[in-house]
């Protein structure tokens, strides 16, 4: 990170347009970017900022439906826009490589990892297949993949997400490129896995002195990786600075607002232990086929309180939600609503019981029927449960839209595809509210959203809770969210509740070791955080093994 070579990439006045029906609209508007050899530049911004599009443009590549309409892209003196497709193809993979967000989707499911590793070098004539394969084993080892000799002979589906992401980084390294584009490489991973991948990436980039563009929306992550950070907003540059400078003294309001997100915190609600819990999960054991996914899970949720259920993927958070909603009848134990046991399956529940428990989903895209208009999406529960018709129904829909801070006239007749991600999530909330429930399950409702948008959603949920006396169960893996909104926390691991209690207690040591691991793995805005953490873990010898597989 000390010595940098000469200029490797120079982008001047880049304009990129995307196709919307017949029209071309600009999505990158005159961005300049320079990168020296061995340097790591962080590109940061919310969705729609054009980060990935710029990253791909650095390879002279535009996705289908996009076109580079202006500016210059000089890679090591070669004008990528003017160069022939053959020239560009010969550079891609060989001198500029790419690491995609989802390794699971970006590895071809039909071929073994090592074959895909070797394809680039062999096609580019850099090495023979045999050389490439032995090289792969070497790089797999460097990426700290388990069993580097044989892991390459597995198919993508046989390898876990974190390992795949490392294998993909190794693949990108295959031709020892001058530049690698990392496009949100850890976004899809659990926090504990993320650390492993981040450290492996940082090591290998250092080792081969490769220049990199690191694209992410997560400031804490980019702080660990980048020498310099460029902040983007809607296709335009906001500011650019050295990492430490940027973290310490951002000059633009927008940047400051990004920093500020993490400051949102709700006033904690007073505990109401005396009243009957709105919802109690009691000794639930449940699973699929013969496999138990949940074992003896119990917790209570009271009115006006938010219980956050945290844990990594596979810990049983979502299965718990399925038991509560009745999609998965438990093998043992029961779910009570205001003290009354609920029938185990949703088919056995009365319409009123169904009404009382609503759910908001992580992916608003799949949770809203894309062919129905907002009017019907929100109106249907009101019509079904409350028997509203005609004008009253319309009024109710408009009220709900106002509640979720969307202008009724402008939105009531839209399709979900005509809304932004945050707006869609608000519709999801409105749909749940339309049933006038007492209890809402929020399943990772903010994890697919940008931070500013997510904050808005959290604030809205908070407001509504007060207004309608709602009880929330908040499923999340993001501890920042927990900090912001929860009254109580339930930590789950491998289908069991490992720790639960009021939020204040949870964030105070001593912790259960697993809670400790989770808490310590959340990246912090300190550029030295990762280095320090790894050193600490090295010293302690604990935790790393649990997350590293």
């Amino acid at each position, binding site marked *: 990170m000390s010595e940098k070579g000469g200029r490797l990439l120079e982008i001047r006045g880049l304009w990129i347009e995307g*196709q919307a*029906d*017949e029209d071309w609209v600009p999505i990158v508007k005159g961005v300049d970017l320079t990168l020296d050899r061995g340097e790591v530049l962080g590109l940061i911004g919310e969705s729609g900022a054009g980060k990935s599009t710029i990253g791909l443009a650095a390879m002279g590549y535009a996705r*289908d*439906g996009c076109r580079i309409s202006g500016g210059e892209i000089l890679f090591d003196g070669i004008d990528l826009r003017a160069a022939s497709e053959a020239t560009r193809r010969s550079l891609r993979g060989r001198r500029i490589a790419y690491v995609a967000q989802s390794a699971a989707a970006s590895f071809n499911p039909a071929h073994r990892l090592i074959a895909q590793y070797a394809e680039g070098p062999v096609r580019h004539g850099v090495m023979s297949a045999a050389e490439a394969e032995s090289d792969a084993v070497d790089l797999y080892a460097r990426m700290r993949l388990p069993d580097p000799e044989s892991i390459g002979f597995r198919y993508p589906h046989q390898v876990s997400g974190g390992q795949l992401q490392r294998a993909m980084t190794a693949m990108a390294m295959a031709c020892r490129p001058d530049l690698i584009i990392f496009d949100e490489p850890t976004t899809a991973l659990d926090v504990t896995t993320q650390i492993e991948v981040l450290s492996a990436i940082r090591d290998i980039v250092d080792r081969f002195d490769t220049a990199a563009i690191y694209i992410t929306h997560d400031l804490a992550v980019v702080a660990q990786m980048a020498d310099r950070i460029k902040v983007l907003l809607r296709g335009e540059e906001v500011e650019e600075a050295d990492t430490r400078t940027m973290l310490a003294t951002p000059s633009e309001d927008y940047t400051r607002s990004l920093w500020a997100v993490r400051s949102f915190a709700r006033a904690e609600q007073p505990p109401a232990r005396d009243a009957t819990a709105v919802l109690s999960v009691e000794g639930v054991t449940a699973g699929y086929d013969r496999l138990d996914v949940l074992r003896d899970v119990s917790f209570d949720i009271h009115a006006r309180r938010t219980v956050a259920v945290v844990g990594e993927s596979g810990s049983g958070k979502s299965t718990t939600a399925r038991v509560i*909603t*009745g*999609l998965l009848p438990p093998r043992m134990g029961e779910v009570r609503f205001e003290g009354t046991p609920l029938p185990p399956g*949703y088919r056995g*529940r009365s*319409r009123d019981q*169904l009404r009382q*428990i609503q*759910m908001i*989903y992580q*992916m608003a895209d*799949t*949770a*809203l*029927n*894309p*062919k*129905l208009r907002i009017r019907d999406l929100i109106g*249907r*529960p009101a019509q*079904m449960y409350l028997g509203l018709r005609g004008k009253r129904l319309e009024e109710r829909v408009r009220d709900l839209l106002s509640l979720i801070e969307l202008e009724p006239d402008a939105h009531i007749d839209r399709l979900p595809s005509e809304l932004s991600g945050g707006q869609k999530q608000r519709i999801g909330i409105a*749909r749940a509210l339309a*049933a006038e429930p007492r209890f809402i399950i929020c399943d990772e409702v903010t994890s697919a959203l940008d931070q500013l948008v997510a904050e808005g959603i959290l604030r809205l949920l908070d407001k509504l809770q007060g207004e309608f006396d709602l009880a929330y169960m908040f499923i999340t893996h993001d501890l920042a969210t927990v900090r912001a909104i929860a009254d109580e926390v339930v930590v789950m691991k491998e289908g069991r509740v490992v720790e639960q209690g009021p939020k204040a207690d949870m964030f105070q040591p001593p912790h259960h070791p697993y809670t400790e691991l989770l808490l310590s793995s959340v990246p912090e805005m300190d550029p030295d955080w990762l280095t320090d953490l790894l050193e600490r873990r090295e010293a302690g010898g604990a935790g790393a093994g649990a997350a590293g597989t």
Partner: protein
Amino acid sequence: MGFLTGVVILAVVVAVALAAGWLFRAMMVAILPAGAGRTLRTAPPAAGFGMLVILLYILVALFAPLIAPFGEREIVGPEFLPWGDTHLLGTDNLGRDMLSRLVYAARNTIGIAFVTTALAFLIGSVLGILAALTGGWLDQLLARAVDVLMAIPALIFALLLLTIVGTSIVNMILVIALIDSTRVFRLARAVSMNIVVMDYMEAARLRGEGTWHLIVREILPNAMAPLVAEFGLRFCFVFLTISALSFLGLGIQPPTADWGAMVRDTATLISFGDVTPLLPAGAIALLTVSVNFVVDWQLHRASGLKE
């Protein structure tokens, strides 16, 4: 020989067709309200041409009696008159006006094919979606039943069934619809399998929605694109099935005019280089190609692939 001339004519026809498609699209964009117009503007000329042809066919079918110069069954002159002023496309083997027969055949053929295909889709898609939705024994039962029906060759099965129930037009529609519905079932089931796992389906189930609402409001609109594409192909295959049946002596019987049977009746003439059978065959082909141009465009739009 006329072959080269044919190629030149074909090229001209293609050029004119594309131009017509382009013009038609431009015209419709101008006429239609903004939303539909914007969608339409994305249509390639081929799809524009397809829509134009389909529209023309529908008009011809609807207004056959107004367009046809003579009656469908009316014997208006000597048999096998050449093309001329009174009889633009000449007369057929009984002395009926060829053009009029073609026009009326549009009505019969399209009408029968449409009813048949619609019926096949009604049966096939409802059952297919239902199978995907409910799963379990009903799904297994329906899937196995369809397997069984598909294991019997379609033409043989149609032959057997039509022999049993007799060859009226109604029976033919029912039999072909039944056989075709098995194909639709498989598609509808496969498509729905991907839809029933969506979160909005879960939400609707948890809301306590009934099966019919789930099928009609939640699944069907989302399964529409592939089903419509299949509808286009099936619609055209129905003509072919009917004409194959008429080859085996079971199709639409004269004097009702239909393109499949008209090809069949005049097919021997092609052995002598007479172009008469090309007229009804061309009518089928033009419609098939047009329908599929539109279907391709729709599928392309639905796939979200932009190129």
